[in-house]
């Protein structure tokens, strides 16, 4: 038991920081689900492509020896480009693969999303290769900042950044959705597409915007996670997607606070699972928690229960 207690503080930190990563991905999922009530299976791939974009930006700057630039500026540039590419890709996907299916059965939409995901993954595999791309982060963030030792606990600068960004995004998005005109139009569209259109809301545009924002968030997340774990590869979307969407569902899909909570619960449960069981079972524990939560609260931790109208 002592052995477990000894590592517990570090494992809690591990869990929270990993949770931050999951939460970051889950937010994008939740945005899209909130408006179209669809699981965007392709989100993982959009995320991955965002990561590649970030890598290319870094790579080009690196080649041009422009890394003497302020690290903050470099990261900002990466994030901006990744968001733009991911966002546009998201909009494109919506236009091609989802919009024609807006009135089709859910399963069709799900499979169409799956098709997009398979296509994008293998598209990147073909044109980018299977090779993992590494981010030279040492050149960006000095070692002293990258790893911080605090008593018995070690954490890194990027991990803190991920959590901070996560909270900022959530606050920003909540305010945007709650108070701006665009946010209200988004909510109206989510609640009743036809009526929203009759109020003069350009529904197609709103859905496009949501896809843009959701996908751009995915791109930003991917760059941050890439900087944190120093790598991106064509398969990154699948693993990230699975966990991100587990987190989103766990928290109550469509609910941004829920997505965050779900991310942290998932991250912590994985870290604690590794502490007490063989590491191979960490995902088993995560999925068992998901199942248990959904069986007890089928609408997730913070999701809204929407009773069926009879």
């Amino acid at each position, binding site marked *: 038991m002592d052995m477990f207690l000894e590592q517990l503080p570090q494992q809690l930190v591990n869990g929270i920081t990993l949770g931050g990563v999951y939460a970051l991905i889950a937010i994008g999922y939740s945005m899209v689900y909130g408006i179209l009530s669809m699981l965007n299976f392709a989100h993982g791939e959009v995320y991955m492509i965002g990561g590649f974009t970030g890598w290319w930006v870094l790579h080009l700057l690196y080649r041009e020896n422009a890394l003497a630039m302020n690290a903050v500026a470099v990261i900002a540039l990466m994030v901006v480009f990744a968001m733009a590419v991911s966002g546009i890709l998201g909009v494109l996907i919506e236009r091609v693969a989802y919009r024609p299916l807006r009135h089709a059965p859910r399963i069709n939409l799900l499979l169409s999303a799956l098709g997009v995901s398979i296509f994008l993954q293998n598209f990147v595999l073909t044109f980018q290769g299977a090779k993992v791309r590494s981010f030279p982060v040492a050149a960006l963030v000095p070692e002293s900042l990258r790893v911080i030792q605090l008593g018995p606990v070690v954490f890194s600068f990027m991990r803190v950044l991920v959590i901070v960004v996560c909270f900022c995004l959530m606050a920003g998005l909540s305010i945007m959705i709650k108070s701006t*005109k665009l946010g*209200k*139009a988004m*909510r*109206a569209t989510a*609640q*009743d597409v*036809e*009526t*929203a*259109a*009759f*109020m*003069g*809301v*350009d529904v197609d545009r709103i859905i496009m915007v949501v896809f843009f924002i959701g996908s751009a968030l995915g791109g930003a997340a991917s760059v941050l996670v890439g900087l944190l774990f120093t790598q991106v590869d064509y398969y990154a979307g699948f693993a990230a997607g699975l966990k991100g969407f587990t987190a989103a569902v766990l928290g109550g899909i469509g609910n941004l606070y829920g997505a965050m909570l779900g991310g942290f619960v998932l991250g912590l449960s994985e870290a604690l699972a590794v502490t007490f069981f063989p590491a191979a079972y960490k995902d088993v524990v995560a999925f068992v928690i998901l199942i248990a939560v959904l069986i007890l609260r089928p609408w997730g931790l913070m999701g*809204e229960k929407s009773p069926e109208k009879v």
Partner: protein
Amino acid sequence: MDEQPILELDGIDVFYGAIQVLYGIRITLNRGELVCLLGGNASGKSTTLKTILGSCRPKSGKIFLNGERIDTLPTKEIIRRGIAIVPENRRIFPRMSVGENLEMGAYLRKDRDRVRKDRQRILELFPRLAERIEQPGATLSGGEQQMLAMARALMSRPDVLLMDEPSMGLSPRLVDQQFDLIQAVNKQGTTIFMVEQNAGMALSIADRGYVLQTGSIVMADTAASLLCDPMMREAYLGGDAACGVVDP
């Protein structure tokens, strides 16, 4: 009154896929009128409204609003030009507050000051809504939802207000209240085009009426004449309604 009609449908044909659902519909609305469109199920009433709003596109025919052709415009532009709708079953946004629902009504308006004034005015008209301004729409009672739907539509200062089955699913008292409200709004100068199954009630407050049957207009006359028309009485008024007296 040789004034130009405020809304004019000129020979509208609409198809769903290969099936024609509207046949050469001609309807005119003059400023300040209250006109109803009657007809059974699947006769094409809702399609007519959707066509006016641009969510169904006519295959042929034209629609004019204040003399301007609107049948090729997107929904948003049609609404900007002065049409609003109270949809069937009211369809308020359930998880938005009453205030936000009203804001959605004024979604396209840019004149913030006047929007604020209109909001004041409308809330005075519906004091119950003012009391519940922060409540989510879903928590309102049936009558209050009906007020909200109406208030929301008025927030856009429409020239023409479309109403889709305003009495559907309402208790008799609320139906009365609803029709009183429609009349009141019309008296204040808003032109109203109402689609309704409850022919007796509708004709009792309308100026004129159209009867739609399997996609074609089969009758068009003043409300009073329609109420006394034998065929009309047989098919839509339940036969035993006395001429000029309403019996729902």
